[in-house]
């Protein structure tokens, strides 16, 4: 049956782009769906971080949610700072000095820590990584990338079907 032109156009438009609506909705679901939280018992930790020309050692740290973390920042050469993304936490250490402060890791995820004192040309890129609990965002990201591929196949597969339906 051939539909009248305006309705036919509307249906064509809707069917042509339905994959996009499905993609956006499914994507949103992936991004906001609750995931199981870490059940590990919080503990007290002492983490010593050495700051030298454009690097923190260790550069990657993994802790559990709600751990009480004491960070000891040691500057090995010039004045360095440490500022943690997502937390109101900052330290500043003079050369050879050790400074420390404590915070509770009450937000889960992966957070960058950065040097907060201009220490040389590569200062803006002096970055470390603190992972608190499992990295849920990367799990969501992987799911979203898989969804992208599925959506692409679905969207292209739909075109001949659509043409047949409206013929």
């Amino acid at each position, binding site marked *: 049956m051939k539909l009248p032109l305006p309705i036919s156009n509307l249906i064509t438009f809707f069917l042509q782009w339905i994959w996009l609506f499905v993609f956006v909705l499914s994507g949103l679901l992936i991004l906001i769906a609750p995931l199981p939280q870490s059940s590990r018992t919080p503990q007290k930790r002492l983490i010593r971080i050495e700051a030298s020309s454009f690097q923190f050692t260790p550069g990657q740290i993994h802790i559990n949610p709600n751990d009480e973390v004491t960070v000891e920042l040691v500057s090995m050469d010039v004045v360095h700072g440490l500022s943690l993304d997502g937390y109101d936490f900052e330290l500043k250490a003079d050369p050879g000095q050790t400074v420390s402060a404590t915070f509770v890791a009450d937000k889960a995820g992966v957070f960058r820590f950065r040097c907060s004192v201009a220490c040389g040309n590569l200062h803006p890129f002096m970055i470390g990584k603190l992972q608190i609990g499992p990295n849920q*965002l990367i799990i969501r990201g992987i799911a979203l990338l898989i969804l992208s591929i599925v959506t692409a*196949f679905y969207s292209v*597969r739909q075109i001949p079907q659509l043409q047949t339906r409206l013929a």
Partner: protein
Amino acid sequence: MVRLDLTRYPWALSILRNRWPQFLLRAVTLAGFVFTILTGLFGSVVGSHNFAIIFVWIAWWTALKLFFIPFGGRSWCSICPIPMPGEWLQNGGILMPRGKGFGLNKRWPKALRGSWLQAGGFLLIGLFGALTLTSASVTAFVLLFIIVLAFVLSLVFERRSFCNYLCPIGGFTGLYAQAGPVEVRVKDAEVCASHAEKTCYTACPWGQFPLALKSSANCGLCMECLRVCPSDNIAVNLRPWGSDLGPKTKHRLDEAFLGLIMLASVLVDSAVFLGPWGQIKSAAYAIGSTPWFIFAGVFLFAALVILPGLYAGAVKLSMLMGSSRTTLRKSLAKYSQVLVPLGLMAWIAFTISFAFAKFSYVLPVISDPLGWGWNLIGYSNSAWVGQSTSISLLLQVVMLAVGLAWSSRVALRVSGTHRQALPLVTFSGIFSFSMLWLLIG
């Protein structure tokens, strides 16, 4: 496909046709360019306190990827200051159309045409990026070298040879402008065919003939064709994103090479500038040292062997799965379209984290551009330590997902069958997962 021709609106047509608005914008960018060189040469050696570093590598580089290309294709090229002095000389005046000016007007050597040299230039940016991006004086010398080179070449070669064949940023914008939502096309092909003089081609500084334009890669949106067309037959269209990508468009092997260099560069830049590996940063910065040679070797191996190898393998597999008899060279060129949305969205994802974390430096350097302790607008001491927010991280994931969906869709549309597209989709997937790990992991 749907197009909205901006020249249908009298106000838009008068703005586009008049040389003054464009000239004023170009005058501002040229003044900014000269000021950037001066601040780079005479300002503070601390990069985060110098206008040259912050404006070139944070403000402009971010604006190019998040604004100019995604919403205007090659719109930056229409106001870029680099070819201006040479073009004025070529045209014999500041507001003159292309014509009897000064210069040898030679044709660019055939062997050097295409995007090969632009890709090479982008590789150089990657190899020396850690120094260039952080040293104000090096940035100033690079900009000075580029504008002098463009000027000298415009005296020897015809039109915008520098932009067409050498400028790495021209290569970058041209490649990704194919996915952009702006195009210049003719309204009625018959009108052009019956017009003997071809004034549009004569006037075009890019050497393009609008009637033959099938891709926006080499059109710099300068509007000269619109200004000289006696029949008002040039349209400036807003179009759906990715209109140049599909089974009916033609692509070249050098586009594939350029696309792969861009993919390698965004991977390496993500590792160097956003990763937690201090040793890689130090190696990338210590130019001439043994660690730098190792870094350069790994970078070049990734850009010239690993990625092209994976891509060529995917294309070869795709060919084996299909029935059409075509050469590997043609298939490599045809599938280069897949690399366009993949690379564009990866660069946007990279830039989001870069911009969010570093934008705090912009106002302070406007207040004190040379780092000499001035406080012109009261923001000299307002720089805070920028950070990635949960929104910026989410946006990065979404951009990578859009890039993968888009490139997979292009692969599927270009391929004869879904089976044939699978290797290219897998290639795009491997790249996207690598980017995800580098940015979010």
